């Protein structure tokens, strides 16, 4: 029992934990919804260990201890594995919430994570109206880009920049990650410029997501979240498709955890 809750001694604090396939993020907010700290760690093979590590880091950065947290919301595919969370909410609601909080004119959220991608339509209050997710394969996700960057032996950071330097685009016909990788290897063997191939790979991801965007429809301003939003190659191509700029937070990877922390605050106040 966190007794201090009822004593009105001090500020209340909220945590959002997003356990994704690749990384686990934690965001800690105070009662004004100001972000005190965040952390990003690899999820690895043990969700609980990753959560302990990420939460410990974020708490120490905020100068808090775990029992000072009033409400914890877990999200992401590993949300079910956290025994101590007060509530488990899907990443879809969380990304919608954080996009609305950071960029209130947002009506469409494109989240491209390590394992899946989503397009979410929200109303002017940040409530989810509709959404779509990619099917099970890695096409159109961060994993696809990661595997392809591996084929070129370049870092993910450089990968997006190389795409921007392309003179032309070599289309990649396979959407399957495994087949696309062999397609890339044969293009490399034909001495095609790597920038052009890389541009084609980025287009492949964007085309895949674009189909999902059209299913949900483009409404209002668009916000991108998830690790792939750090990749300029993807963002530039997506902005070309949309014909307008996209809102991106300086750390798009923590948008799920931020949304979870915001919802933690909301649920805490509702339940109080």
């Amino acid at each position, binding site marked *: 029992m966190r007794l201090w809750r009822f004593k009105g001694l001090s500020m209340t604090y909220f945590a959002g934990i997003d356990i994704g396939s690749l990384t686990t993020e934690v965001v800690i907010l105070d009662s004004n919804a100001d972000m005190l700290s965040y952390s990003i760690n690899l999820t690895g093979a043990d969700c609980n260990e990753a959560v302990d590590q990420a939460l410990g880091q974020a708490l120490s950065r905020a100068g808090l201890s775990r029992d000072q947290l009033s409400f914890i919301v877990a999200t992401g595919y590993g949300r079910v594995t956290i025994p101590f969370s007060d509530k488990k909410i*899907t*990443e879809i609601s969380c990304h919608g919430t954080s996009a609305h909080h950071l960029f209130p004119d947002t009506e469409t959220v494109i989240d491209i994570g390590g394992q899946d991608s989503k397009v979410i339509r929200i109303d002017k209050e940040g409530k*989810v109206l509709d959404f779509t*997710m990619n099917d*099970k394969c890695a096409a159109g996700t961060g994993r696809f880009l990661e595997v392809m960057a591996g084929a070129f032996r370049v870092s993910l950071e450089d990968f997006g920049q190389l795409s921007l330097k392309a003179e032309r685009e070599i289309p990649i016909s396979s959407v399957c990650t495994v087949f696309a990788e062999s397609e890339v290897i044969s293009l490399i063997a034909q001495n095609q410029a790597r920038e052009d191939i890389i541009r084609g790979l980025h287009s492949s991801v964007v085309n895949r997501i674009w189909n999902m965007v059209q299913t949900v429809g483009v409404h209002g301003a668009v916000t991108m979240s998830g690790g792939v939003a750090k990749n300029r190659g993807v963002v530039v191509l997506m902005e070309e498709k949309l014909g307008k700029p996209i809102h991106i937070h300086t750390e798009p990877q923590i948008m799920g955890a931020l949304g979870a922390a915001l919802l933690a605050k909301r649920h805490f106040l509702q339940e109080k």
Partner: protein
Amino acid sequence: MNEKNKDIFSRIESYYTDYGQRAKELKNEGIKIIGYMCSLIPLEIITAAGCVPFRMRGDVHEPITKGDINLETIACPFYRSCFDLSVKGKYDFLDGSIVAHGCDSMARTYAVWKYTLDLPYSHFVNLPHTISESSREFFRAGLNTFRKSLGKFAGKEISDDDLAEAIGLYNENRDKVRALYELRKPDPPIVSGTEITKILTVGASLPVAEANKLFDEVLEELRQRKESPFKKVRRIMIDGACMDNIELVKLIEDLGGNVVVDTLCNGTRDNLPHTDTGNDPLSALADRYLDKINCPRTYRENKEQDLQKELESRFGDIGFFARESKADAAILYVYKYCDPFGFEVPVRKAYFESIKLPLLYLEDEYSAGTIGQLKTRIQAFLEMIQ
């Protein structure tokens, strides 16, 4: 719960988990068991022949392995799972199997089924794809051929009286299913979607007279629930093909939605329509299976030339059941490679939009391996409609 009725629910559980146990017993008594997989098979004819129709199920927990040696993976995963289980010996007690011209997977692989399993009896029910006078005539004649062929196999000439009697039993069965659905109408419902799925699945593995008795006992027990044991949460409708396992419904209910109605093959859509009585029984059966079952495999001509009216004439039953059960939202659940439903997804979505029922469309494999993926989508949908 009194002892007798406690026994009923454990019997249902046992029939559900050890699916086919009653059919095996009957087989040992010398009764012929005829397998089928589609609601378009006129079960009345099988019952009238003195045989027991047995609805074959797939198993979402059993990976498809042996079946793929003979059946191409272009067939739908539900059908492949049924075939896989058959090849692995799960349905070795069958004396025959009947395949209808339901979907492409069924029609185009009838021969694979027939020659691989090599059962003593097999028959293909050639159901026309359009509704007209000539197709009714054609279908009635086809049913007559089926009646003669099965009668010969069963060693019994099937008379009109036999048919009329079987029709009566099935109409009774449909009334009992209707009564079960009535118990889903209160908010919260008296009976859960998971329970209903189990009850209906089990019913399709029994002789119709036994299923009727079982449903009566279940109804008696359920009516003793003065208060609903469930929470008052969002009321969900499921639309799609057949659902012979509880996984999806249970997932929705575990995540905090009540599944209160459906338009599924083994639910309202194909279970409820009655067969007319009093006239030529074969014509009445032809009419029921051709026209009264609103399966997307049958083409219904739009004479209105107006999309809105066409939507209403094709999918009005969905709206009817949604209104009647006060559904808050719906899930359209379609198996991958399901040709009748797959092609209809955009127009079904348009219909749900026209009746302003929030819809989640799920395309799935027939496999428990996708539960995690479905969980996020369903939970997000439930959060969305709160």
